[in-house]
């Protein structure tokens, strides 16, 4: 799922140290209030959590495989919308033409390894192509759906399309079309969880390519009956949708190389880089360039949505995941100062931390990462960062910073590879 790393302070002003002021909240020394990370403007808190010296993790150093073969496509992080936003170009064609009819190339589509399905903004699809994308109909009614994200929602129609990515082709893929002007009914109230995503400006992109471990965005529950916040008729009435009509991860519908993906990003500078390049590889253990078997990869079995468990500072984080759609590391660490205005972790000097991937194969693995001063990074004018983070509790999101210098594998549920077994699983190599 796409995530962005922004913190806002309302015009009324923000004071984390005074959280709960005005009659409630913490007592005692608010500079060390357990309820909020200390602001960077206050003296840096004594690191009482861990008295050992600060040890920085070595930067990951794996190099992306070359773009060229038909199962590869270039990925770029550059000055488009927000930082750390990996983008590819998707080719969209009339359904059922083996991706040859009325094809249009749509650039600046976000690579999102924690969501599932292709979603494109209507205005980004040229009308001569869009008019040929058969609307999906269920029970005689044109189908619509809400796609909910953490702080935004997309209300759109569902159409069939042929999708090609480099040399790979999928026919008759159900995709979501966001901001379709033919959808005149307002989004259901339960879908309105944040900012409405209607235009390319709202998204900061032309679309989202959700290529995580789930083959579709709902599954059996939505086939068995209407499920709130998923599928509706275009009149806003909840409806069941058969699994093969649900918005689908296009990779799972490729004729070959369809058991997963590998996202491989070149490492960037520890002070940020203007841009970054990488390769999105289709298939695992299906070609010479996508081996998992025989590598020293660390592998985690995941649940159907890609989550696994890690230990951080003695706390189990059952929602741990690798998410290329998150622009920063989102995780809870009260020992790292936070800039109250932006919300970024802002230590005076870069700090090193470790997470323990408890269920990893072949063995439980210590995964090191660094967090630098996010205020400095954000002011640098760069767009690719490997050490940017934000405080967030009850989950551990290894966002885009984790991907630089790594090959990160996603095994699709129900599909198998020699090296990974049957998905869902994730794996990575760091060199």
């Amino acid at each position, binding site marked *: *799922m*796409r*995530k*962005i*790393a*922004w*913190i*806002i*302070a*309302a015009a*009324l002003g*923000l004071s984390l140290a*005074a959280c*709960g*002021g*005005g009659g*409630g909240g*913490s007592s005692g020394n608010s500079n060390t*209030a357990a*309820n*909020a990370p200390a602001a960077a403007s206050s003296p840096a808190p004594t690191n009482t959590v861990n008295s050992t010296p600060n040890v920085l993790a070595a930067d990951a150093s794996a190099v992306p495989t070359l773009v060229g073969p038909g199962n590869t496509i270039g990925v770029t992080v550059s000055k488009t*919308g*927000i930082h750390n936003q990996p983008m590819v170009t998707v080719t969209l064609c009339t359904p059922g033409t083996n991706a040859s009819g009325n094809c249009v190339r749509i650039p600046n589509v976000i690579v999102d390894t*924690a*969501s*599932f399905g292709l979603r494109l903004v209507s205005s980004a699809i040229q009308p001569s192509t869009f008019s040929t994308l058969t609307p999906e109909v269920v029970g005689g009614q044109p189908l619509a759906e809400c*796609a*909910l*994200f*953490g*702080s*935004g*929602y*997309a209300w759109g129609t569902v159409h069939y399309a042929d999708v090609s990515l480099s040399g790979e082709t999928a026919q008759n893929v159900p995709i979501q079309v966001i901001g379709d002007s033919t959808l005149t009914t307002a989004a259901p*109230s*339960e879908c*309105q*969880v*944040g*900012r409405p995503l209607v235009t390319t400006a*709202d*998204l*900061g992109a032309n679309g989202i390519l959700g290529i995580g471990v*789930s083959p579709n965005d709902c599954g059996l*529950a939505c086939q068995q009956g209407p*499920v*709130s916040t998923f599928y509706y008729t275009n009149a806003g009435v909840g409806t069941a949708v058969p699994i093969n009509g649900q918005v689908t991860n296009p990779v799972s519908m490729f004729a070959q190389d369809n058991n997963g993906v590998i996202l491989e990003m070149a490492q960037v500078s520890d002070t940020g880089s203007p841009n970054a390049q990488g390769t999105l590889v289709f298939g695992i253990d299906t070609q010479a360039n996508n081996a998992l078997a025989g590598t020293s990869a660390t592998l985690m079995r995941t649940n159907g*949505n*890609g989550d696994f468990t890690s230990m951080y500072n003695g706390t189990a984080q059952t*929602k741990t*995941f690798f998410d290329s*759609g*998150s*622009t920063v590391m*989102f995780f809870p660490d009260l020992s790292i100062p936070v800039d109250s205005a932006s919300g970024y972790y802002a230590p005076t000097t870069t700090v090193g931390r470790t997470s323990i991937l408890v269920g990893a194969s072949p063995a439980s693995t210590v995964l090191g990462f660094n967090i630098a001063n996010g205020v400095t990074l954000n002011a640098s004018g760069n767009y690719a960062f490997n050490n940017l983070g*934000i405080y*967030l*509790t*009850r989950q551990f*999101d290894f966002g885009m910073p984790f991907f630089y210098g790594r090959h990160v594998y996603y095994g699709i549920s129900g599909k198998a590879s020699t090296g990974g077994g049957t998905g869902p699983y994730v794996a990575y190599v760091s060199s």
Partner: protein
Amino acid sequence: MLVVATASFAAVVPAYAGLGGAPTYPVTASSTSAGALSLGDAAVARYAASGNTAAPAYTVSQTTLPSGTVVNEYITAANTVFALSWEGPTMPPLKTLLATYFPSYVQGLTDAHAVQGGGYGAAVVHQSALVVETGGHMGSFVGRAYLPQALPQGVSADDIK
């Protein structure tokens, strides 16, 4: 305003439901329909400040939505919701749950988007009267929202989970 007896939560009826108002979901012993409860087996748990169990400072009412998402409403002794948290496969209906605070939340997201140029996923909104932290991803969401100025005595944000 009536003084609320410690055993009763119904003496005062806020004008609306949602954050800052009355609980959105019924507060009963069977509020939960399914699922493992982080609060133990009780669907409703009463919490006291500093171990003073005779005078609970707040109540947590847990409700499981049909999708499987669990919503916790943190309720003062005066029957107003000062915080909520969620975890599960779908986002909870934040427009309903944040109630009069929802427009301020969306404005905060919009302002941040204008500055940053992107974003629709995890976010943290810190305003003097409202904090919202929303995380996770499609199929696996987790988050919380609270009113910093309405936290009961002795309660901190760490208690909201």
